[in-house]
């Protein structure tokens, strides 16, 4: 491990070579919007919100999967990036059936917050209104695919942390959907341990607990840091996490 120095938005900062640009930016209070990223899960670079400009490179780089290099000069907030981020949120909004007014996570939703973040006044693309399924067969939880943004956090937490690999993605392109086991009703899944991790990591109201009504559900995600910390360091001290 080595300490590198780089420049983010004109400020000289330092970071470790095994961290991502996103880690380093956050340590220095530089806000980069993210959606598929979640601390404690592997990064996939799929949502493209955290793209940053690197001086001397024509391509944009996702901050979550890009490692720093000595002397790197990075910009995270150019007009171009802001415009692209807004377009990404527009595309996501048009892709699903997102009705905040009737959603359990209204006011606690990451997609909603991102829409405010990028000042999304309206969506210029026609809404696609896909026909997606709601599955309420599980005893405790519901998956409403209308609200899914395909960030795959549920797939990753189920595979990487819980080890059940109940969830995966079926189909491709715009027809991608999150499936349980053989694309069967969640309640009939043999592999699901009903641990609820997927529900907690879901950024939107696509996965939620039964018995909650509009705007009632806030997702508690501290558990993930706790588990990952315990796994990697064999330390079970919750205070340490809270300090971070």
């Amino acid at each position, binding site marked *: 491990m080595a300490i590198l120095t780089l420049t983010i938005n004109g400020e000289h900062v330092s970071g470790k070579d095994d961290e991502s640009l996103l880690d380093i930016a956050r340590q220095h209070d530089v806000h980069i919007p993210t959606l598929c990223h979640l601390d404690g899960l592997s990064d996939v670079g*799929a949502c*493209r919100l955290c793209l940053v400009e690197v001086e001397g490179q024509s391509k944009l*780089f996702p901050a979550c999967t890009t490692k720093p290099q000595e002397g790197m000069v990075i910009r995270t907030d150019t007009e171009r990036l802001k415009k692209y981020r807004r377009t990404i949120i527009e*595309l996501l909004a*048009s892709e699903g059936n997102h009705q905040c007014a009737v959603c359990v996570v209204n006011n606690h939703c990451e997609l909603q917050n991102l829409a405010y973040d990028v000042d999304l006044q309206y969506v210029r693309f026609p809404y696609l209104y896909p026909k997606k399924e709601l599955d309420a067969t599980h005893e405790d939880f519901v998956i409403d695919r209308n609200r899914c943004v395909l960030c795959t956090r549920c797939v990753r937490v189920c595979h990487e942390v819980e080890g059940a690999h109940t969830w995966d993605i079926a189909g491709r392109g715009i027809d991608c959907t999150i499936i349980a086991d053989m694309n069967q009703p969640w309640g009939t899944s043999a592999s699901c341990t009903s641990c609820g991790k997927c529900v907690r990591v879901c950024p939107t109201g696509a996965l939620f607990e039964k018995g909650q009504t509009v705007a009632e559900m806030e997702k508690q995600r501290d558990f993930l840091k706790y588990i990952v910390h315990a796994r990697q360091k064999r330390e079970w001290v919750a205070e340490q996490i809270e300090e971070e």
Partner: protein
Amino acid sequence: MTLEDLNELAEKELERQKNFKNRLLYCSAAGCVSCGSNATRDAFKKSLKEKGLDKEVEVLGTGCMGLCGEGPLVKVGSDDTLYQRVDENAAARIVDEHLLNANKVAENLINPDDPFFASQMKIVLENCGKINAESIEEYIAAGGYQALAKALTEMSQDEVIDEVRKSGLRGRGGAGYPTGLKWGIVRKAKGDQKYVICNADEGDPGAFMDRSVLEGDPHRILEGMALAGYAVGASQGYIYVRAEYPMAIERLKLAIKHAERLGLLGNRIFESQFNFRIDLRIGAGAFVCGEETALIRSIEGRRGRPRPRPPYPSEKGLFGAPTLLNNVETYANIAPIINRGSAWFASIGTPKSTGTKVFALAGKIKNTGLIEVPMGIPLRKIIFDIGGGTPEGTEFKAAQTGGPSGGCIPNDHLDIPVDYESLATVGSIMGSGGMIVMDSESRMVDVAKYFMEFCADESCGKCVPCRVGTKHIYLLLDKISNGKATQDDIALLEELCVMVKETSLCGLGQSAPNPVLSTLRFFRHEYEELLKPALHFEQSEKSR
């Protein structure tokens, strides 16, 4: 197997061929087979038997002879006469008149001085149409595996890489990355196990170069991969080939079997320390698997979803090991470079784009088929000399290169040389070699829409810009094509195209907008002609 054994095999094969007075070569590539070349073969055999010539004349199936639109194609070995549209009747006549009476059958004759042949230069395809694609002996007799023998007995790994580097060969899959450089990186990468992969997932709809090489000269690829394996220090190779190419798969399987039998694949090849095996992996219908990280995932038995690079496969590829990935045509160039030297190869083409390029010529053009030309040849020469121009009564409008990732090149840019950089300046790419000609009947908005539908359908769905963006680009094109769009929609289309290009995760999304941007650049008027007449209030009232 030693070099002496190899030479002996070659001599024995040449001896065998001399036992025949003549050879009838029929094209057994997929194009001609679908025109009925198997019936032609049977007709030849029947007719030769009737005339008592079956011991004197050998009938053999070869790789693609090029003029796929006029199949089945047949060549008479003794004087290299080429015949087109040889059905069963024509086959009988060729035996009767040409073989027995030395009179050429005028009706089916192809003029050898036709510019279709005269302007070509064959390196990759040199064996196609000349040797029996299913015989390793014929490949060896044509000089096959000499390069591998030379490398393993005379050259160090670095010398092989150096030779490839000096040849100036660039990746033929589309992007044109210098091959030698790539090999050097994999050679230097740390790892006990390394892999060599041949990308034969020719997904560009309108291209069949790789298929023709695999069907016509499979050993060429095996030899190229083995050379690569030696150079970078890999002992295992994979060929990732499309399931849509059953004949190529069969011929590759056979070729691998033959090569293993002769010890040209396996342990201690040419009695060196070099071991190398090749396995086939069959694709399953996903264009995105032409992208290297997606292809690797697919070989690992997973959904073909690309991942961000870096790390590049040369450092972290198949099963996390350093991996060399090249395309079919790239590997096909390796043996000739080692045999004839990098200086020879570098003298062909242009200084920055050396060697030749194979193109699949199709669409509204007289001569459709497979061609190989030196790099730097003017596009006009390909279309009008080799291709013979558009069919009677129609006018050339544009040539499309690079398929769904490429662009359209209009008439006024036809004099550009065909090399990586020049094609990029007009907003297209070399691509893998598909070249589709459009005439005055083709509507460019519909062409763009066609490609966008393809890309949206082939998007893996991982990243947002490609998954949703390509869908909206398609919907905007559909709106324009149906006469329901306004000038604002064109502006939005352009903005979205640039966004998808710059923010998508992999090459599929990054290049998917190219056909739209390129047709907007050269044929914008065709878009604007389709706009709906603006209503009065819409002209005065501006949308926010």
